[in-house]
């Protein structure tokens, strides 16, 4: 797999790791090093007496290092990959040493075990009993949620900023007890709205609408389309068995990695990878949750392309997916883009008609360019319609520099009438912003 420096650096957890990784991308730092089609390894002399053993599984871009760093990947992993990208020919050793062989062997074994492991026989009666108990708990929780929401609208939302977030946190906790964790998260999201920013009332009503739709949808779930039932169950907090999903046939395509979004809460890092199927024109969201101090299994680089089979979670609008198999790809097929903002709005309306409480999604739109209007940056389409960019978007200068004021194809993410650019096509190549 040939990775560019830019792509490797996008894996770094922070700026200092990028810098330190680059400093280690010199031959003199590595006591030994080698590479073959499966793995990349090296021993880096650190401050300790023994060199750190760093290894990368190239099939999944997974890292392991004997250094004590809690960052993932650590600077040694990044440095080794950067050195490999810069000076591949110096990696003359192709025979994996024992410590690499052992790690790769275990990984292969685990993978095979996963694939062959048969499900243990399930006690169906006990399972049914648990399920009924949970459904009852959820029903009770939703009753309380409805009462709470009615209380909110009856008393008026004007005083909510003064009351603070306690009311949302308490309701969220009650829903956790009711085993509806995702819905609890939706309530907490409502409490996280900036009540001192202009337009908070509209944002709060939007979120209350979504919560209401999910809650009432669950109450009459039997009457809904089976796929919509899945969406509702997911938003309540029923989990899907990933193993079962991975057994299904997925969508094969060459997937362009549009962007990687990282957020951290309660010591858990959430990585959101947005992918776009170059031939199916399907958008996908792959999530990875990493507990602090542990490494993630998945590393995708924005701007890179992978040939992969993706299994989508069942939904009326399939978006979230799991990667079943992946290999690197050099496919440079142009994306099928929306012609202007009107087409984006049409697609959006169609999606909302299927799933009214859906979140934001990426859209690829052609012939747009950045323009300044009323001291705010917008993306102007060929019909001169101006789409305001989210005020938090901080890469406007790079976007502007790459565009040169000319129309280009861009990938934006958002909903309704506020979008953030994720990347753009520059000289036929996708550049993540």
């Amino acid at each position, binding site marked *: 797999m040939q990775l560019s420096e830019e792509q490797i650096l996008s894996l770094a957890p922070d700026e200092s790791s990028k810098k330190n990784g680059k400093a280690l991308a010199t031959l003199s730092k590595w006591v030994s090093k080698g590479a073959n089609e499966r793995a990349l390894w090296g021993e880096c002399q650190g401050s300790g007496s023994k060199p750190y053993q760093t290894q990368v599984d190239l099939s999944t871009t997974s890292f392991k290092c004997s250094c004590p760093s809690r960052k993932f990947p650590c600077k040694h992993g990044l440095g080794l990959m950067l050195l490999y990208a810069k000076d591949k020919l110096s990696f003359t050793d192709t025979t994996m040493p024992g410590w690499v062989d052992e790690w790769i062997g275990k990984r292969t074994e685990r993978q095979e075990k996963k694939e062959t492991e048969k499900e243990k026989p399930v006690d169906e009666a006990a399972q049914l009993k648990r399920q009924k108990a949970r459904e009852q708990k959820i029903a009770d929780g939703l009753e309380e949620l409805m009462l709470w929401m009615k209380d909110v609208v009856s008393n*008026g939302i004007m005083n909510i900023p003064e009351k603070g977030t306690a009311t949302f946190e308490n309701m969220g906790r009650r829903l956790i007890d009711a085993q509806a964790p995702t819905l609890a998260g939706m309530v907490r999201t409502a409490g996280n709205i900036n009540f001192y920013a202009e337009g908070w*009332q509209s944002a709060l009503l939007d979120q209350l609408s979504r919560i209401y739709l999910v809650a009432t949808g669950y109450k009459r779930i039997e009457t809904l389309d089976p796929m919509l039932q899945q969406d509702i169950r997911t938003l309540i907090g029923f989990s899907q068995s990933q193993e079962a999903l991975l057994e299904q046939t997925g969508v094969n395509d060459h997937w362009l990695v549009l962007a990687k979004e990282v957020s951290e809460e309660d010591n858990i890092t959430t990585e959101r990878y947005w992918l776009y199927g170059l031939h199916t024109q399907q958008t996908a969201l792959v999530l990875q949750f990493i507990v602090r101090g542990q490494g993630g299994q998945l590393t995708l680089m924005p701007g890179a392309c992978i040939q992969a089979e993706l299994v989508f979670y069942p939904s009326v609008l399939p978006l979230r997916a799991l990667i079943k198999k992946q290999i690197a790809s050099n496919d440079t097929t142009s994306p099928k883009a929306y012609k202007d903002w009107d087409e984006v709005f049409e697609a959006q309306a169609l999606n909302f008609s299927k799933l009214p409480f859906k979140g934001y999604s990426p859209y690829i739109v052609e012939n747009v360019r950045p323009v300044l209007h009323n001291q705010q940056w917008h993306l102007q389409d060929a019909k001169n319609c101006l789409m305001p960019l989210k005020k938090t978007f901080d890469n406007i200068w790079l976007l502007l*520099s790459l565009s040169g004021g000319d129309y280009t194809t861009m990938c934006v993410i958002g909903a309704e*009438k506020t979008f953030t650019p994720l990347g753009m096509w520059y000289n036929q190549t996708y550049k993540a912003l």
Partner: protein
Amino acid sequence: MQFWNHIIQVASLGTGKQQADVAEAEESLQPALQRINDNNQIDHEERFLQIVALAFNYRQSGASLVPDEKTSIEIASPEEKTYCPSAALYLLSEIIDAESNGLLEIWLNVCAGKGFIVPPELIPSLFDIASQNKKLQTIIAKCCGKRGEWLISFNPDWKFSTSESDEEIWNTGLAEQRRLVLMEMRTTDPAKARQLLEETWDKEDANTKALFLSVFGNGISEKDIDFLDKLKTEKSKKVKELAFALLKIIPASSVVREYVQILQQALQVKKEKALLGLVSKNVLQIQLPQISSSVFETGIEKLSNVKELSDDLFIVQQLMAYAPPSEIKSMLQLSYEEIADLFSHQSPSLLTAFGTAAVRFKDLDCFRVVVGKDKNTFYTDALHLLPPADAGDYGFSFYNSRTGTEAVSERNNLINAITAAKVPLDEAFSVAVVEHLAGNMYIHNRKFFSTYIHLFHPAMINAVDKFQPKEQYLQSQWANMGDYIKHLMQLRLQIQSSFIHKP
């Protein structure tokens, strides 16, 4: 949108006080809203929640934009130059990471010299660097081509601009920007610079005046005397002192003329017999005339604070430092060698003052003679006067001559002076400096090497491994520093070759 605003209004007050009015909604939405309102099986709070949910979806599904024909953007002009080869760009990112502005400046100069420009994705980060490093602004702007010219006008943080004329910046810029314009113009067109300063002088405050005078020494000549003479009556003491300091470096100024005149009256050389009358030698006689109090207002001190130095000799020494050596030469009717001999035997402090004057009035012949006799003084300003190679030799010879307890600090000071003057160090000097720094690790940090790596000889790479601190606990730190130094030097050595296009 109107109905949504109505909903916000109702929600703000609460359904306990107000109900949503369906008639406020768009016509197409009314039948559905009416069905909700007619549902008596649910309470009015839930009816409101349903109305909100419906209106929310109506709004988010019906987003639209109105074309705006007036808003546009000018398209950047096409580039006339070629983008850098990828190897050079890779090196540039390494140099930026190493935070070496010294190397960055070399890279940018090679880039501009070879007629290349950087691609658009690098322009914003280079402009960010330029906004923090004024010295690099012009060269960065040059390397960013037409796209950079176009982009710069959009970001107010990138206030530097190549499109504004010097006059425009002088009239509208910040004090620091104006100082840079003045400094530059004093080198290229001193008369015009003086004219600009005179035009706005009365409107400036004392601090700004002092700021501008601090760069007025560039290109100074007797044509500046009239302007500087007028500043002798300035209210600000600081401005007045700066004006005098400037007048004191113009041989034709009244201040220097007066100093020379006093020296002419004070100094006399007489021949005396020595060695039983076999040889004659020159003897300097000092007899100060009555000195006007105005002379002491120009910064000359009356009393010596050194016991061995008389007040008269102290005054003469100060005057000597501001007297052009050629005038002392004709005054005493002696060659530079004879004067240096005379001073070194009779009054070494006068020799130092004579050397200082040689540097100040850029008299290279006189300076070379003085340096031959005065081994204890390092004339820092001479580093700017001598040709670079000679300046390096001068620095190295002084560096080698330092011994004793003060040697470490003297060598440190010299390293600082020589690097600040941007004097390139030859192989031997570079190796000697590395040896010194390995033994005195904490004095010069990574920042020092990242700033001045371009002044060192590549031979320093080997010297880094050859020398190390005596203290064991410092050796691993020196090894890290050494890696950094070698990395910087390797980057520097690759700059030229990275710009060669490979097929």
